[in-house]
């Protein structure tokens, strides 16, 4: 699950070593915006060593590297890929070629480091109008791509607007990205909610992206984690309904029936798939069987 992915500044030992204690689903160790230009070298060493020896609980650990138009990104890849990261979050992806370039570099480092080829995934940050426009092609550019996500602040600048609490400026961006992600078969993750003291606004925004179909959201403050989990976690009623649907479908299948009725409603493949997804969200099943 990727309900919450918490950003940790790459040059801050306190956060790097303690971030997982807040129990997000994932960590995004940042070598980009939160690290000043003069500290890139020091942060890269620190992140490398913490990745080698740190404890991260059950979190999926990723690193946001510097953008492909900088002198830093190849050094970032070379430093962190050998340390066993699950993935790299790549900023300012605008076209499929950028993904292929990153893929090629990761492949070279994997080969040098005796890491299983293809094991390091790519999370593509779409932070320009061009990147969003090319979202599907970017998501399909490499089998490493596992998620695409908008970068709210940069996108607002590129769109010549600003971030609002209502998220008006990102509304269609979010819709475009969820469609592209589903068509490409990758996750859709949302950008951060920058107002760290506005739980009500955060809850409203998470409710919106959940309804669109998003898998989770980037997080900039640990206090946002429980708020987001509460929205994404299924309610007890949803879990009970999902259980009954899955059980009814299993029973129908055992009797050789293709469809079944529950509480007067036809239970067909999409309904079963959603029910399984609900149970997976509740941590009660890992068997999504999305093709079913």
């Amino acid at each position, binding site marked *: 699950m990727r309900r919450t992915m918490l950003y940790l500044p790459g*040059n*801050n*030992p*306190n956060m790097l*070593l303690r971030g997982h204690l807040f129990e997000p689903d994932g960590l995004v160790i940042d070598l980009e915006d939160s690290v000043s230009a003069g500290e890139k*070298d*020091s942060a*890269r*060493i*620190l992140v*490398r*060593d*913490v990745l*080698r*020896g*740190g404890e991260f609980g059950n979190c999926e650990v990723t690193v946001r590297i510097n953008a492909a138009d900088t002198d830093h990104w190849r*050094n970032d890849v070379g430093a962190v890929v050998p340390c066993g990261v699950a993935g790299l979050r790549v900023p300012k992806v605008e076209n499929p070629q950028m993904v292929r370039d990153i893929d090629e570099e990761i492949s070279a480092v994997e080969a040098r480091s005796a890491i299983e080829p293809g094991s390091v995934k790519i999370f593509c940050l779409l932070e320009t109008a061009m990147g969003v426009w090319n979202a599907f092609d970017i998501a399909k550019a490499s089998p490493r791509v596992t998620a695409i996500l908008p970068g709210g602040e940069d996108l607002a600048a590129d769109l010549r607007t600003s971030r609002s609490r209502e998220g008006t400026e990102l509304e269609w961006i979010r819709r475009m990205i969820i469609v592209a992600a589903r068509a490409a078969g990758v996750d859709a993750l949302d950008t951060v909610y920058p107002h760290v003291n506005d739980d009500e606004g955060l809850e409203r925004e998470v409710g919106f992206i959940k309804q669109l179909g998003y898998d989770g959201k980037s997080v900039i403050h640990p206090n946002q984690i429980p708020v987001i989990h509460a929205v994404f976690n299924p309610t007890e009623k949803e879990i009970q309904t999902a259980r009954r649907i899955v059980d009814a479908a299993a029973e129908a299948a055992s009797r050789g029936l293709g469809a079944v009725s529950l509480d007067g409603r036809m239970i067909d493949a999409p309904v079963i798939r959603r029910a399984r997804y609900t149970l997976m969200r509740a941590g009660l099943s890992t068997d999504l069987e999305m093709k079913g």
Partner: protein
Amino acid sequence: MESMDFKTSQAGTLESMDCLVTVTGPSDVRIIEVSGGSASRFRTAIELKVNEVLDGMGCDAGVRVTVQDNGAFGVVLGARVEAAFARYRGGALS
């Protein structure tokens, strides 16, 4: 009168769980100075770590290394020493 070119490089911060490492040289011998709240209890461990990192980086010149510690774990101390000495040496980071 012969002049000597002194260099100073730093890495790290004085934030919690971090340390500020300063490398100055040249020096006749390697000198390690430790200060901060944990200096009295962990001086030996800190000195061992500094020596381990410098030896690992092939440091055979005399330098003065100052560690201002604010509760840094060994992994953080090692990273800061490596960054500070790499900056001092001016070469590519390992």
